[in-house]
């Protein structure tokens, strides 16, 4: 009887599949690949249908086909201007974003920790919050001496509100038991802040940062289109898209869109990575 059980359980434990093997047998992955290829073919056919079949498909028919986009991209890869606009946009995003983190995190924590501070400063914050960051663009241009600074300011605003709200929410939802446990072990206010509230808020800080990063890219793009495009030397991917549009090279517009998508994706992956390395206790399981 016991022998039978043993032999059964031994034979039943087969070898573990390797990572590659797992990936290759993953049905969802293949379906995704199929869907993406299908979508690109669909796009190509729709765009080309006027040429191929003589029928213009509404809306999507006006968009240049993927083949054309790839050709445009290949050509543009050699231009330093294209790479410079990557550099400029990324720089702006990180400038505004970093300032927003530096100011927003302490501000949010203060709001959460101190009741009086919250009572005083939260109402004006709440009044200003619903105004979309882009509505600040003109006012910002008027106020700041250089375009660069005004873009940085609007970018900062975009991320700031999200970060503060997330930090505030995160800090307030920390389990009161952690605070009590620390208190009964003799922690003072300072310890509570550094040893409990700050690490307890980290997950929300990074969530806020990830959302803020997305908004930052939107804002940078818009302000580049609105202000950077107006003056010479502004540059940036937003300006690249806008000038391509003005110049009538639609394929380049799409190249710009994809570039900015990649840039946005990379920067939010970066934020996620930062989150993972600063929160080792979340990496497990």
């Amino acid at each position: 009887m016991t022998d039978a059980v043993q032999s059964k359980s031994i034979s039943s434990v087969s070898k573990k599949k390797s990572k590659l093997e797992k990936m290759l047998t993953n049905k969802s992955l293949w379906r995704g690949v199929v869907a993406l290829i299908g979508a690109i073919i669909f796009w190509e056919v729709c765009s080309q249908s006027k040429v191929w079949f003589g029928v213009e498909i509404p809306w999507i028919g006006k968009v240049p086909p993927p083949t054309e986009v790839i050709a445009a991209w290949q050509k543009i890869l050699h231009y330093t201007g294209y790479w410079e606009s990557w550099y400029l946009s990324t720089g702006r995003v990180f400038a505004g974003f970093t300032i927003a983190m530096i100011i927003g995190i302490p501000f949010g924590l203060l709001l959460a920790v101190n009741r009086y501070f919250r009572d005083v400063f939260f109402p004006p914050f709440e009044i200003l919050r619903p105004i979309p960051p882009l509505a600040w663009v003109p006012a910002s241009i008027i106020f700041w001496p250089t375009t660069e600074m005004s873009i940085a300011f609007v970018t900062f605003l975009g991320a700031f509100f999200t970060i503060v709200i997330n930090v505030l929410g995160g800090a307030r939802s920390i389990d009161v038991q952690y605070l009590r446990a620390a208190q009964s072990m003799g922690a003072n206010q300072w310890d509570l802040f550094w040893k409990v509230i700050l690490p307890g808020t980290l997950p929300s800080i990074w969530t806020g940062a990830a959302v803020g990063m997305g908004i930052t890219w939107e804002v940078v793009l818009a302000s580049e289109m609105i202000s950077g495009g107006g003056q010479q030397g502004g540059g940036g991917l937003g300006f690249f898209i806008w000038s391509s549009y003005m110049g009538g090279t639609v394929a380049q517009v799409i190249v710009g869109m994809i570039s900015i998508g990649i840039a946005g994706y990379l920067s939010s992956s970066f934020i996620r990575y930062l989150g993972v390395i600063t929160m080792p206790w979340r990496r497990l399981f």
Partner: protein
Amino acid sequence: MADQNTSRGAISIRNVTKIYDPDGVNVMAVDDCSLEIPAGEVCMIVGPSGCGKTTLLNAIAGFHSITEGEIYLDGQLLCGPSKPKAEQGADRMVVFQHGALFPWKTLGENVAYGPIVQGVMSKAEAHEKAEHMLAEAGIGDVAHKYPGEVSSGMARRSEIVRALINDPKVLLLDEPYRAMDALTKSIMHESLLEVYDKTKVTIFFITHDLEEAIFLGDKVVVMTTRPATLKKTVDVKIPRPRDYQTLTTEEFRVLVEETKEAVHEEAKKAFDAGERELA
């Protein structure tokens, strides 16, 4: 097949084996398990957590397939080699570990849900019957409340009512009182016994609490740790109706003593395995 009325809900589990296959690693959850539950019996399955008790329940309910063996209900094949997964049906009602009352329906709507979707009753009829049954269970005055608004004890009671309104042959309970404290639990036990004495429905009850098992059951089946097989079967001959005072009788104490050893041995094994796994 025997007379419908007398043999409602007899379960026969024959040589059931279940092997899971996550990521190509075979894990045996149940190993060659056979068990006969006569109609109208309260069968308590005791074993350490994660030992495969729930797998057995899932197989009867039709949530999971089985690898080998057969399960019969009233002589009819539920699942077997030709049909690895049983059909889910209203003749076997499950009450879940964490409670599965729909939070977006009131207790009354929850209870009335089954008959309505099965198309056995009209909406009005179902609601009327639901209210009647809830009142019988002593919770008629909260029928219009949502599950989030009542205590877990009341929620669990109405979940059992929700199962019973469908007139099931078998009631499958998966550690339904696990999260409750001992005192609430004892009240829940009494109310379940009350229901049982009225309906005499076959009950398949999973738990890891030995006292609960002996207090409620006609038969207590102790399972080994994973892969689960039968370790010991104890017949409980304490007369019904039972109440909380049964818990402190000599008879009860002796039964607990008798079973304890077997349960502890397995629990210890499971516990050590768990600690090892984490290390």
